[in-house]
C-alpha cells in the first residue's frame, strides 16, 4: 500500500477520500490498478498493493494490507502464480468472504489472456522458480491490456449494474485508444523488428513478442537464481556470436551483472520499469509503454 502519511492521518480521523465511489477495488499490481481506473472512472476507488518499482513475486503479506482487503468489493490479481507467495495469506486474513477466489469479488485477470511459455512435461524446482502455468508478465503486451481491461469492465458491470453502461462505454473508449497507440508503438519499433536481446529475468517476453523482438538469453541461469560468473560468460559469448547488442534490465534487480555483460559484449544497457509507476513519468499504462518504446528506440 502506498502509505501517504497524510492519507493515513485522514483515515485515522475517519475522513475517507473518494467516499462517493460505488466500488472499492484492490489490485495486486499498479498496472491492473491503472486499467481499472480507466474503465471504472469515478465510480471506482482503486488501490494497488505492489509498488510500481517492486518485484511482484516478492511482496510481503503484511497484515496491514488485510485491512484494505477487508473493505474491498473486488480484488483483481495477475494470476498464473505470480502472487502465490503472498496473496492467499492476505485473502485469508482479510476475512472478507466476497473476495475469496471463486466469488464474483475476485478476478484473476489471467483468465482473459492466453499465456506463453507454458512448460511442457514434468516441471520441478530444479528448473528454478518456474511458473507451471505460463509466464505471468503478460500485461506488457498492449493487446493483453485490452483483453484485461475488457474483463475488468465486465466484472465491474456485474458487481455494479447501475454503472454498467458507464463501464462499457469507458472500456470501449479505452480499448480504442490503446489500439490507436499500439499502431504508433508498432511503427516506432519497426526498425528493431527481428532484433535479439537479453534480459535479466523473463519479464519482457510478452512485450518483445508483440513487437517482434526476441530474448535469446537471461542473466539468471534459471528463473529466480542469481547470475553466476560462468553463466554470464556464456551469455556474453552467445551475444557476440548472435549479434545481440541490447541488454534489458528490470529496475528492481541490481544492475551490476547486466552492466558488466553489456560492457563486455559491447551492447547497450537499457534499465526499464516493468510496471506503472516504476519510474517517474510512467503514471499510467500508456505512459509506461511509451516509456519502454522510447527507451528502446532512444539515442
Amino acid at each position, binding site marked *: 500500500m502506498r502509505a501517504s502519511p497524510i492519507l*493515513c492521518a485522514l483515515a485515522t480521523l475517519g475522513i475517507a477520500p473518494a467516499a462517493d465511489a460505488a466500488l472499492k477495488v484492490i489490485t495486486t499490481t499498479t498496472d491492473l490498478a491503472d486499467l481499472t481506473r480507466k474503465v471504472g472512472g469515478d465510480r471506482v476507488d482503486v488501490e494497488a498493493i505492489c509498488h510500481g518499482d517492486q*518485484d511482484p513475486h516478492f511482496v510481503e503479506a503484511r497484515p496491514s494490507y488485510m485491512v484494505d482487503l477487508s473493505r474491498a468489493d473486488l480484488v483483481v490479481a495477475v494470476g498464473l502464480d505470480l502472487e*502465490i507467495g503472498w496473496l492467499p495469506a492476505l485473502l485469508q486474513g482479510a476475512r472478507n468472504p466476497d473476495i475469496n477466489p471463486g466469488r464474483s469479488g475476485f478476478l484473476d485477470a489471467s483468465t482473459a489472456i492466453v499465456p506463453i511459455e507454458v512448460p511442457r512435461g514434468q516441471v520441478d524446482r530444479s528448473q528454478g522458480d518456474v511458473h507451471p502455468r505460463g509466464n505471468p508478465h503478460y500485461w506488457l503486451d498492449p493487446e493483453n491490456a485490452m483483453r484485461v481491461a475488457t474483463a475488468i469492465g465486465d466484472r465491474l458491470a456485474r458487481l455494479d449494474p447501475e454503472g454498467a453502461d458507464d463501464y462499457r462505454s469507458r472500456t470501449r473508449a479505452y480499448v480504442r485508444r490503446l489500439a490507436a497507440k499500439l499502431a504508433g508503438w508498432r511503427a516506432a519499433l519497426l526498425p528493431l523488428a527481428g532484433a535479439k536481446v537479453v534480459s535479466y529475468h523473463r519479464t519482457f517476453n510478452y512485450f518483445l513478442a508483440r513487437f517482434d523482438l526476441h530474448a535469446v538469453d537471461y542473466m539468471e541461469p534459471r528463473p529466480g537464481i542469481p547470475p553466476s560468473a560462468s553463466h554470464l560468460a556464456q551469455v556474453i559469448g552467445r551475444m557476440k556470436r548472435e549479434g545481440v547488442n541490447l541488454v534489458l534490465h528490470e529496475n528492481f534487480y541490481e544492475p551490476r551483472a547486466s552492466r558488466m555483460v553489456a560492457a563486455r559484449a559491447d551492447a547497450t544497457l537499457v534499465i526499464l520499469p516493468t510496471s506503472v509507476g516504476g519510474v517517474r513519468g510512467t503514471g499510467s499504462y500508456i505512459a509506461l509503454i511509451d516509456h519502454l518504446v522510447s527507451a528502446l528506440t532512444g539515442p
Partner: protein
Amino acid sequence: MVRMGTRSILTTAVLAWSEDARGQAPVPIAEAGVSDARGLSNTMNPAISLVGQVMGSGSSARQDPEGEQDGLGTGLSVPEVELALAGIVDPYFRADVFVAFEDLEGVAVEEAYVTTLALPVLTLRAGKFKAVFGKHNAWHSHLWPFVDGPLVHAALLGEEGLADPGVEAAVLFPTPWFLELTLEALDGSSEKLFASIEPFDLAYVAHLRSLWELGAASTFELGGSGALGQNFRGEATKVAGVDATFRWRPPSRAVYRSLQVQGEYLVARDRPDDPADMGGVVGLVRWQFARRWWAQARHDFLGLPRPSGTDPAQRTTGLVAFVPTEFSVLRLQYSFVQARQAPDFHEVALHLGFLIGSHPAHPY
C-alpha cells in the same frame, strides 16, 4: 472384501443410479477415466508439503547420557521432518494438518484444525493448534529465526510450547490500521502449565496484535498476550507476554535488503512447579545484507523476575544464513550459554532446512 471409503460409497451409489437409468443417455462417469470410475481420483487431493531439517552440532556442555541434554548437544541429527497437508473441505472450511517426526523417533500431530472460510470479520478455528501467544509460540520449528527457540519460552511454556485442542476466534477490527484480537479456549494438557484435574476446566488465551505502517518500507508491531488456566495442583496459572517487532524492507530492492528487530517478554505466575513469579526476555536482530545472505544475533535472559535463590540463565547467539532459494536454507549458529544449574558452555551448529511440495506463505 472391498474397503469402502466415503468417496467410493458415493461413486457406487451414483453407478447404481446410472444403471437404473439404463436406456437413457450414457452416464459420463466412465468417460472420466478408469480410475475415476473406480472412485480413485487425485483431483481433490490436499496440498502436501514436507519440511526437513538436518543438523550437525557440537557443544562443550557435559553430556549426561541419562538425563536431558542442555542445548543442542553434539552429533549429527535430523531434528525434525514435518509433513503438512492442507485442503479445502467445502465452501465453509479449510483443514490443515501438520505431522512432525522428531529426531526420527516420535510422531506427533503438531496441529490439526479446521478454519472457517466464509465468515466476515471473524475467523474461527477448531482442533489442535499452537496457541497465538506472543510471536514465537505459534511458529513451526522450520520458521524459527534461529536453530533453537528462546530460553524463556521453553522454561515457561514447555519444549512443545502452548499447543492444545481448542477453539479460537480471531477478529479483525474495522480500524484504519491492523488490529486483531484472538481469543482461544484450550483443553490444557501440558504439565508445565495447564493440566487441570477437573474435567471441564479450560485454559484461556487472549492476544491483541496491532501493526502500523511507518511508510512504504517499514512496519512496527506491538502485541500483548495473556493465558490463564488451571494447573494440576488445582490453582490458576497465569502467563502474560508483550512483543514488539520492527521490520524494514525497501520495495525497490526487496529481495536484497531487509532488517527485523524483535523482542518478546514473558512472565508466569503460580506455575505448577513453583508459585514464585518467573519471567524472561528474548531480543533478536535479523539483517539481510545480500540477496541470499543473512546475519542475525539474539540474546536470551531468563530470570526477570525470578524466584529468590535462583540464578538467571543467559544465552548470546550469533548466526549466519545462506538462503539459496525460498526452499532451502543453510545456517551456521554459535551460542554462548550461561545455564542456571550448570557450568557455562559453547555450542555450534550447522543446520540445513529444506522444503518440498506446495509452498505455504511465511507468516509476517
